[in-house]
């Protein structure tokens, strides 16, 4: 329990660092941030928009510290400012629409990839000479060397454009309205198939190798040797003694890779015009919509921190040595 609280504290600290970075960045631009912003947006924004922009960044005449406090107050209330590109929509509203899709896409991809990759790695380490240990890892590593979004482009070209097996973009068909029906879910699945498949393929190699290498080390340990000496069935030795222990570093690796995978999924979304944070991000970059950009950064960071905490929970469940904080 103390472990979880300590981790929570760490995540809160990281969130605070992200917030502070968000606060400091516009102020790090050369010159007076307010003037610089004004110069950049002059002609494109009306006076109300400019005022809203100023307020978002807390670019008032007040001293830095009080600006900071105001800013923190805004964020804690969920007020991330007004979007420039989607003026006058507040950033939080704009982000809200896309968050579900990003979480769905990235979440599915990570879960599927981790599960399959870990299983393959386990098999590769157990039957050392099988195809799973020879050409499969190298092939998957090679595929993983391609940028995610490039794989997405190829997949879209071949399977969407070329063969027409999958739709060319978006999360669901344009003529469907979202509902809790089987047809809607099926359509969502069809649209998600290609993006998820490319992300899974791109990351599979990493999980496979990580699990495989850990398994090989674990298989050489004394407790696995003892399990064999006890005459236990090979399946039990492989699963309950070896894999169960080899899983721990893999889960740790999962936590560390979450941020990275999320970045890749954002880029994948762009290729598939998937209505998630990635698409919004690209719009924000093109329009120099700083409030939106920073809002997305914040929201994504919080999502990743939350996911990390879930991974910590999983680790706690898996490793009894962590459970006693004070034993």
């Amino acid at each position, binding site marked *: 329990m103390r472990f979880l609280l300590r981790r929570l504290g760490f995540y809160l600290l990281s969130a605070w660092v992200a917030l502070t*970075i968000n606060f400091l960045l516009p102020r790090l631009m050369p010159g007076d941030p307010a003037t610089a912003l004004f110069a950049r947006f002059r002609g494109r924004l009306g006076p109300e928009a400019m005022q809203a922009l100023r307020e978002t960044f807390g670019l008032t005449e007040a001293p830095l510290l009080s600006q900071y406090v105001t800013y923190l107050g805004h964020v804690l209330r969920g007020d991330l400012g007004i979007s420039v590109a989607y003026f006058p929509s507040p950033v939080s509203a704009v982000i809200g629409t896309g968050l579900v899709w990003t979480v769905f896409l990235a979440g599915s991809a990570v879960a599927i990839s981790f599960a399959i990759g870990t299983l393959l790695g386990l098999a590769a380490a157990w039957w050392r000479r099988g195809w799973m240990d020879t050409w499969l890892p190298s092939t998957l590593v090679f595929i993983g*060397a391609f940028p995610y979004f490039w794989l997405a*482009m190829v997949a879209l070209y071949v399977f969407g*454009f070329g063969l027409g097996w999958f739709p060319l973009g978006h999360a669901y068909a344009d003529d469907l309205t979202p509902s809790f029906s089987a047809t809607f879910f099926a359509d969502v699945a069809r649209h998600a198939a290609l993006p998820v498949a490319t992300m899974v393929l791109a990351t599979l190699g990493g999980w496979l190798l990580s699990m495989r290498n850990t398994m090989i080390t674990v298989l050489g340990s004394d407790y696995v040797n003892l399990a064999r000496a006890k005459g236990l069935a090979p399946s039990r030795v492989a699963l309950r003694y070896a894999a169960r222990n080899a899983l721990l570093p893999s889960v740790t690796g999962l936590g560390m890779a979450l*941020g990275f995978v999320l970045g890749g999924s954002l880029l994948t979304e762009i290729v598939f015009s998937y209505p998630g944070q990635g698409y919004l*991000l690209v719009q924000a*970059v093109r329009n120099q919509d700083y409030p939106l950009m920073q809002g997305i950064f914040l929201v994504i960071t919080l999502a990743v921190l939350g996911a990390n905490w879930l991974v910590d929970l999983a680790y706690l469940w898996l490793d009894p040595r962590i459970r006693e904080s004070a034993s």
Partner: protein
Amino acid sequence: MAQTSGVSAWWGAIRRDRKATSGAVLLALFALIGIAGPWLVGDPQALVGIPLQPPSLQHWLGTTGQGQDVLAQLVVGTRVSLAIGFAVGLVVVLVGAFVGITAGYFGGRVDGLLSLLFNVFLVIPGLPLAIVIAAYLPSGPLTLGLVLIVTGWAWNARVLRAQTLSQRQRDFVAAAIVTGESDFRIITREILPTMTSLLVAQVIGSTVYAIGAQVGLEFLGLGDVSAVTWGTNLYWAQNDSALLTGAWWTFAPTGLCVALVGFGLTMLNSGFDEITNPRLQLERAWRAHLFARGHKATRSTPVVVDHD
């Protein structure tokens, strides 16, 4: 005969391991293209033909959506992309080494603070952070480099701190401390030399990361879109709706090059894997021995009697 570190050990490892050799060859090829290539192709920015032409004899990789030669863009882009990638990879390891080794060696509050620092940077997602920082700075290689370094150093710090911690416990360090060697000398003379193969592996790995991240950021339009690099090539391909017009040659070759370089670097690193993890190669000779005598590898200790 087996050495644990040192240039000759790496050279031997590269030659012995097929994967590492093919990786090295691949990289040498790209280095050659990067260095000598631009002199052999024309100006990549020149409008040389009808836009979106498929590969032909005049333009081996076809033309872009603007009418430029894809091959020229690819070759010229190689130099910049590889140079930035490698430079960033190097700096990222230097920064990570400085922070990680300091943290691991001095321990205590210094370690606590530095560890917190790199752990925070590890958990904050890199791409969104990179985008936000890059958006505020003028576009160009310096910004790109800075942003890549800021988002990439933390991993190396963590790994090198762990390694320093384990080395610090060793007897030879205790001996050096007792004889009054200064901290600086202990770090540079005693600890650092034991980590050379790890540092090389880190540089290679970081270069892979730098190239990939660089391409990603440029794809988003955060690099200098008027420059010719692999990433901006992909940016323009996407911009000019390459997919919807079926112009696969505008993006396929670039992605392939990125993958080949990344793959080559990873293969090179796998050669070092065997040095750092001897268990992985332990079974090689054993399997050969069994195979030569018609035995299969069994879970239980095999009985292989040579009757001679």
